């Protein structure tokens, strides 16, 4: 890639999904421009780049738009082949994709809803979240990262469970991920957020906390992840 590359990320500083993209680019040493989007007032560029879903993140690589964080991660891995985030062997690749999908489909939503519901509904979501987190905790086992010695696709996909869910549990006044029930995940969270590349990409915790606290009532009303 000799000529000047143009890499932009349409993103929101609050979003764990755009964090995933930025972390992958950071791990590969790819210089990029972060374009902050106001999700209440989406830019013409965002709407043109992701007309179907109209969501961030979108990766713009020399003008080509790639939406959907999971798809962007695979694109990044295939385009910049240093420091791979996916394993080489097909079976291990399929396992990485499986666990990424499991996190997206079974963990994130249940964890989110656990924060913003109450009574029996909250109990139901917390049970769902616990069951999924238990499976994830078992899958991680004694390993440092899901990717082994270094951060891989599944670790990146699990980022919501680190900083963001920690903040959300504090705002909601619940404690779901605890060291007793999920020792492996708690150890993973500590190791993940302490990694240099991750620290450089994470939003400041106090700002994240203040923002979620200020948006609490709005989120309680809609439960929407777009706030």
């Amino acid at each position: 890639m000799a000529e000047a590359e143009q890499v932009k990320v349409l993103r929101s500083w609050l979003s764990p999904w755009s964090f995933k993209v930025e972390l992958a680019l950071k791990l590969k040493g790819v210089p990029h421009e972060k374009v902050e989007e106001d999700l209440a007032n989406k830019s013409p560029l965002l709407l043109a780049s992701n007309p179907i879903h109209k969501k961030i993140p979108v990766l713009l690589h020399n003008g080509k738009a790639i939406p959907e964080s999971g798809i962007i991660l695979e694109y990044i891995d295939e385009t910049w082949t240093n420091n791979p985030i996916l394993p080489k062997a097909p079976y291990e690749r399929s396992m990485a994709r499986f666990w990424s999908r499991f996190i997206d489909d079974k963990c994130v939503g249940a964890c989110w809803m656990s924060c913003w519901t109450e009574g029996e509904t909250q109990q139901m979501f917390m049970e769902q979240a616990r069951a999924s987190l238990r499976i994830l905790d078992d899958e991680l086992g004694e390993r440092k990262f899901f990717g082994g010695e270094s951060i891989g696709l599944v670790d990146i996909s699990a980022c919501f469970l680190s900083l963001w869910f920690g903040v959300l549990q504090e705002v909601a006044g619940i404690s779901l991920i605890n060291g007793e029930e999920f020792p492996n995940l708690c150890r993973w969270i500590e190791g993940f957020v302490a990694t240099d590349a991750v620290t450089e990409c994470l939003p400041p915790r106090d700002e994240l906390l203040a923002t979620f606290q200020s948006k609490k009532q709005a989120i309680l009303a809609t439960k929407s992840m777009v706030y």
Partner: protein
Amino acid sequence: MAEVVVLLDLWVSPFGQRCRIALAEKGVAYEYKEEYKEEDWTNKSPLLLQSNPVHKKVPVLIHDGKPVCESLIIVQYIYEVWSDGAPLLPADPYARAQARFWGDFVDKKIYECGTRLWKLKGEAQQEAKKELIEILKLLQAELGDKKYFGGDAFGYVDIALVPFCAWFYTYKACGGLSVEAEVPKLAAWGRRCMERESVAKTLYDPLKVYEFVCHLKKKYGIE
């Protein structure tokens, strides 16, 4: 070097059919194992429970004893392992990202909306019909004048979507949605895909699918 490939599946499952079509396109010999004997969804074989302990669902591809789950993950696996012959995904990373995007779109939208269409009644059904037409129109626009979603080569997005062609009759009979009328270019694409042996040999007669759905509705007391 003899490989053992087993597919745990359900005859009518569009997700399982994606895998069967991909295996056929690649000429991979495999053993097909039908799950849920006598349509008892609780009757899951020990092999299924062992191979997909997380979701306990078909399809599961077991390659030399190692299970791969989730239909589109399986299709990508097939593409990566049996790399001779026609590629199921494009070589260029950007084209590949677009294929994954549309495969994901089909995956998230069609089955869920289609199920609401044949299951529900009244306003909820009308809502599902409206939504499904929008989804199909987006897909038709993406197809454009191409032979297949990938261009000249039959591939990932075609494989993701084509099993649902066998459900078009059910969408019409249960929900009054005529795919032919609403998205004629997409309907024509479906017929083109049926000319491929891999698709023709995998998809069941739409009437059989409709019979299956009627049977399900009776079983669950949905009129």
